[in-house]
Structures are given as structure tokens and as C-alpha cells.
């Protein structure tokens, strides 16, 4: 059995698609973690059965409460455990007897405070019964397709195609909240905490087959098994991009330095190289990571290296050109016939060279025509669309027009956009986003996102060739 089959058969899928959930340690008091998780599960609209477990309550949030998981009359797939650490082994033992398939152990007070023994004990119990679990020391799990928000994070998480895995609890919750604000949809959120059982590699092997996920984004502090991560990440990256924010870049490993090589290798070097080798795209910060993830969820793969910039302003065009050079994107040298086509979309003082400058006079018609040229010609492979706010254009309307053109050509090539201006530009970009065109408030961010797509595609090609040779 392959590791993937093992994971699926070994109950990891029950973290995301349980038919029933027990909340062990459900609480009547708002503000308590055991209450908020139950409330989130109910309010987000989970359609399976929910069983609060609390020996001291008869009913919580309108649901019948059970004294123990063993008292629940029906099968339980997933247990969310939020009770003091010392009671977790007994509760997990009961879950095992009940036939629970997977667990999210929210409770803190294990390895993170030096309580290794207690952590080993729960691993032992879980192994005995074949329970796969995330945690301990986590905020829970969210799964968009099954409408399960078993976290004590924000309630109204937007469904989408990004699977977000986080080792940090507080930052993870904060980012969940931020994605709602930024209008970014998620397919799943997994809090990993101490990673006593399920780790990044297990989840990559799961998400690579998850049809609801298009890209995996990981916030990581450290790995338990680098080699295994590399294997899983390579397999996943061949199908879906994996973006990692690895914190602790400045940290240097305490290494006995007896060789030159040793003195040149800080611990972060290995993460950096390992990521590169297994196709993982390393983002320097959260903003960059989600910028890239948004691009990956929407854009088709480019069929070649030729990038064209379409702009209504010289300055923003130059900035984008610089960014292309920094990120290694190939600005296409336009042949005469294409320049002639672009010339028809601009006043005589425009520039048909790449960046194609439609000038500040450009309005809906000019953008439409230029975009049609770029979309219809096979020699052009990707488009960076720039717009500086002017009085002759209403940004939301421009977005509608652009979305229509792109739709007409069936999303045949990657397009990223950048609008610079006031509130109307924000509205305009939101419309583009809704139409599957990733948009960014600066040209550098737009270029960086497109460059990430290229980096992934290039790695994939190289890796496939390597595998063929073998």
C-alpha cells in the first residue's frame, strides 16, 4: 500500500469529511474554547451529526449532551478534544473503544511545556486504535466542502481552493481572520501544533488527491523529518503547488564547525535548498504567500515564456519591467506585426513596444482591443495588466469590460492585474478577483505572483524530465 492510500485508508480523510463529530469538553460558557468550537461547528452549517460531550451538562447550544463519548448511540467519526491535558489519555481511550476514526486534540500542556511522557502516551493510545490525530496544542480544523469549522477561530471563513496548514496557533487564527477580510477562500485549515501524529508530509499526501484543493500553503517553524517532507512535497508539487513560509530564517544552527563547509552552512540553508529541490515555493512573508496562492488558484499554466505588459502609464510600466527583470520573467521583444496590431489600440503618441503603453487617454475600448490582441496571439503567453487611475475611466467599469474579454477567450493564458489609485480601484480589483483575475495593489506584487507560477511550472518540467530519465 502506498503512503497515500495508507493515509486515506488510515483515517486522515475523517479529519475533513466526518459524518459525525463529537466535541469532548463542550462548554456552556461562551468564551470558553469548548463552547466556541461547538458554536462554530453549528453556525458554519455543518450538516453531519454533532454530539457535545460534557458530564456536567444535559444540553449545550440546543444539542443533547453526553456524559462520555461511549454513551453516544451512533457512530462517531471525528472527536474534537478540548479538556485539560491530564484527562486526554482517558478520553482518547474511550474514543478508541467507540471506534472514532480521527481526532483534533486542542488541549495544551504536552511536549510544548516539556510534558513528553504524556504526549507519548496519547500517541500510543491513538496507534493502538488506529486513530489519526492532529495536535495536541492546536486551534482545530476547518474543511470547506463539508462545511465543518471545528476551530475556535473566526466563524465565517470563505470557502475556496487554498489548503492552509499552520504550525503556529495564534498566527493561524489571525490569518484565518485576515483571509476573510481580504476575500481569500480556503478549502481547509489545519492547525498542526505539536505534530505528535499527523504532520506536514501526511497532509501533503492527503491534499495532493483532494479535489477541493488547488494549492497548499504551509506556515512552518521546523520539521520533524526533513527527508520524508521532501518526498511528500515532491509528489505534491508535481500536481499542485506548495507554498511555504518558513519562520526562523535568521536562526543559525548550533553546529560543531570543524570544516569550512560547516562554517558556511547555517541551518536555514538546508531548508532553502530542500524546498528548491522538491519544488516548494518559499515565500518570505504572509503577504507574498497569499499573493502567490491566489494566483495559483485562478491561473492556467503558461504555455511559454513570453510576457507582455499592457499599461496606461509609463511609470508603472517601468516599475513592472524592473520587477520582471528582478524575478526573472521574460518580457517579450514584440515583432513588427504585433507592434502594428497594438498601435491600432492607442493614440499616435503611445508606445507599441513592450510594455505596451496605451497612454493616460486609454479607456475601455483601448484596453479591450489591446487585451484582445494579447489574448488571441499564440506568441504571447502571459499578460500583466496595469492601470493607473485617471479621470477618463471608472475602474469598476473597466474591470467589467476586462472580465468580459477574458471570459470570451476562455482563460487561455495567465493574466495578473494591478490597479493603482483610490477606493474605486479597490472596487475594480475586487471585480477582477471575482472574475478569476488575481489583482494586486502594486506592480511588484503582481509580477512576483506571476513569477511564482513560472517557477513552479519550470520546476515541474525539470522534475518530470528527471523522472522520465530514471
Amino acid at each position, binding site marked *: 500500500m502506498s503512503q497515500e492510500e495508507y493515509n486515506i485508508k488510515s483515517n486522515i480523510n475523517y479529519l475533513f469529511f466526518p459524518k459525525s463529530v463529537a466535541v469532548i469538553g463542550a462548554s456552556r460558557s461562551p468564551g470558553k474554547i469548548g463552547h466556541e468550537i461547538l458554536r462554530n461547528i453549528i453556525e458554519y452549517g455543518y450538516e453531519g451529526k454533532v454530539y457535545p460531550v460534557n458530564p456536567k451538562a444535559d444540553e449545550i447550544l440546543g444539542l443533547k449532551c453526553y456524559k462520555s463519548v461511549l454513551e453516544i448511540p451512533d457512530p462517531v467519526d471525528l472527536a474534537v478534544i478540548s479538556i485539560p491535558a491530564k484527562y486526554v489519555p482517558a478520553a482518547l481511550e474511550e474514543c478508541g473503544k467507540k471506534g472514532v476514526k480521527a481526532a483534533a486534540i486542542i488541549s495544551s500542556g504536552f511536549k510544548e511545556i516539556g510534558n513528553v511522557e504524556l504526549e507519548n502516551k496519547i500517541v500510543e493510545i491513538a496507534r493502538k486504535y488506529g486513530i489519526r490525530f492532529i495536535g495536541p496544542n492546536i486551534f482545530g480544523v476547518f474543511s470547506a466542502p463539508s462545511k465543518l469549522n471545528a476551530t475556535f477561530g473566526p466563524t465565517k471563513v470563505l470557502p475556496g481552493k487554498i489548503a492552509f496548514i499552520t504550525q503556529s496557533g495564534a498566527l493561524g487564527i489571525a490569518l484565518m481572520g485576515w483571509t476573510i477580510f481580504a476575500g481569500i477562500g480556503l478549502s481547509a485549515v489545519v492547525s498542526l501544533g505539536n505534530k505528535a501524529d499527523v504532520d506536514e508530509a501526511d497532509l501533503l499526501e492527503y491534499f495532493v488527491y483532494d479535489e477541493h484543493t488547488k494549492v497548499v500553503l504551509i506556515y512552518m517553524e521546523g520539521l520533524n523529518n526533513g527527508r520524508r517532507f521532501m518526498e511528500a512535497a515532491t509528489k505534491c508539487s508535481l500536481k499542485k503547488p506548495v507554498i511555504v513560509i518558513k519562520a526562523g530564517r535568521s536562526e543559525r544552527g548550533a553546529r560543531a564547525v570543524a570544516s569550512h563547509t560547516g562554517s*558556511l552552512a547555517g*541551518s536555514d540553508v*538546508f531548508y532553502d535548498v530542500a524546498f528548491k529541490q522538491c519544488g516548494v515555493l518559499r515565500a518570505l512573508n504572509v503577504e507574498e504567500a497569499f499573493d502567490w496562492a491566489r494566483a495559483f488558484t485562478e491561473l492556467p499554466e503558461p504555455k511559454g515564456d513570453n510576457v507582455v505588459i499592457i499599461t496606461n502609464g509609463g511609470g508603472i510600466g517601468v516599475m513592472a519591467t524592473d520587477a520582471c527583470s528582478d524575478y526573472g520573467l521574460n518580457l517579450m521583444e514584440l515583432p513588427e506585426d504585433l507592434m502594428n496590431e497594438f498601435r491600432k489600440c492607442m493614440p499616435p503618441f503611445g508606445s507599441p513596444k513592450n510594455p505596451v503603453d496605451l497612454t493616460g487617454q486609454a479607456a475601455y475600448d483601448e484596453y479591450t482591443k489591446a487585451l484582445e490582441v494579447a489574448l488571441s496571439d499564440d506568441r504571447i503567453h502571459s499578460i500583466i495588466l496595469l492601470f493607473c487611475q485617471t479621470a477618463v475611466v471608472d475602474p469598476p467599469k473597466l474591470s467589467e469590460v476586462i472580465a468580459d474579454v477574458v471570459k470570451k477567450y476562455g482563460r487561455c493564458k495567465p493574466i495578473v492585474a494591478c490597479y493603482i489609485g483610490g477606493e474605486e480601484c479597490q472596487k475594480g480589483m475586487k471585480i477582477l478577483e471575482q472574475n478569476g483575475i488575481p489583482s494586486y495593489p502594486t506592480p511588484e506584487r503582481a509580477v512576483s505572483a506571476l513569477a511564482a507560477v513560472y517557477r513552479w511550472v519550470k520546476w515541474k518540467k525539470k522534475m518530470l524530465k528527471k523522472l522520465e530519465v530514471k
Partner: protein
Amino acid sequence: MTPRELIEKALKEGRTWLYEDEAKLLCSLYGIPVAKSKVAKSKEEAIKIAKEIGFPIVMKIVSPDVLHKSDVGGVKVNVKNEDELLKAYDEIMSNVKTRKPNARIVGILIQEMVPQATEVIIGGIRDPQFGPAVMFGLGGIFVEIFRDVSFRIVPVSVEDALEMISEIKGYEILKGYRGTTPADLDALADAIVKTSKMLLENEEIDQLDLNPVFVFEKGIKVIDARVILKK
């Protein structure tokens, strides 16, 4: 001798590193070209080996107590004839005795004097997370000051090795600039691949430096090698 026997011998003698001649032998066992050398235990033997190899030669101290040979004045280069050899022999011995009085001395390594070429470094290291990795860089200030090196987790293929070489900023120097002859990148890549194999097959190796490695228009040669074993 097999790599295993080499390493076990050192460990048995209580050393956590290989003598230079052992490290070079290890390289040759993996097919990495090394500068010709042999350890002499007396002046007579030194002259005999030098004649076999051919003057000029390089002389280096071999001692379980001296890992950094130049630091104790234990290296003499461009030794042109027997007279110079005898003089250098005494100088090395007295230098080491002065600077490291209790050092046990195994002998003096007599090595061919290899014509100057582009210097590079090939390194090996073991990370607790990712296991063995290889390093490549241009020698001298490029490594020391600019830290201009590239790494790969092993195993590496020839393509990976070539990519490692092309990744460093000093790549242009290797390719040949302003009329200098280009270095043999294929031979270099081959040595990196073999180093990767050496690290994979010998768990006891913790770190290693092949430094410098001379790269010629055709072929390469390891001039000095240091292999550190796990404690």
C-alpha cells in the same frame, strides 16, 4: 582498502578525522582524481618518494594531533631538489615541535606540485533534518568573504551538479572570461556526484572539505582533503 576499512581504522585509533593521505585515498576509491602523494616516515623515504613523484614537490605534516597543518608551520611548497627537501624536512619537524610540543608525528606527506589552476571547494555536510548535503564554491576569497556557495541535499545527479556550479556568482570565472580558458565543468560535476555518493554510503562522515580542488581545462585534481567523522 575499502572506504569502510579506512574509516574504521581511524575510529579505532581514536581519531574523529582522516589523515590527508587517507582522505585522498577515500576520494580515489570513489574515482575522484587526487594529487599524487605518499607518507614518508624518514628522510630517506622522503627522498625516495620525491624521486618517484618527481620534483618539485609539496611537503605536509601528518599527525593525529594536527588538523590544521599550515597553522603549525607544517607545510612547505615548491620543494625543488633533495637539498631543499632535507632542509624543509627539518624545518617542518622543528616548527611542529615548537608550536605543538606534544604532537605525535606519523610522518611527512610528499605530494606532487600541481600547476596552478582555478581553485574550487567541494564540501560535504550532514544536517540533522535533511541528512547529507554537498556544497560547491569557488576557492579563496569567494568562499571566505562572499560565501558564494551552493548546496544540494544528496543524492545529486550530474544535472543537479551542473546546476549547482552554474548557481554561484563566480560561475562566469569558471566559464572563462577575457580570454582565460574555461574550466572542465563536466569533470567538476562528476566529482560532486561522486562526493554525494561517498556521503550517502558512509554514514560516519559528518563533514568534509575537498579544498582546494584544482580545475583545469581538462580534468580536476583534489589538492587537499579533510574528512571529519561523527563523534
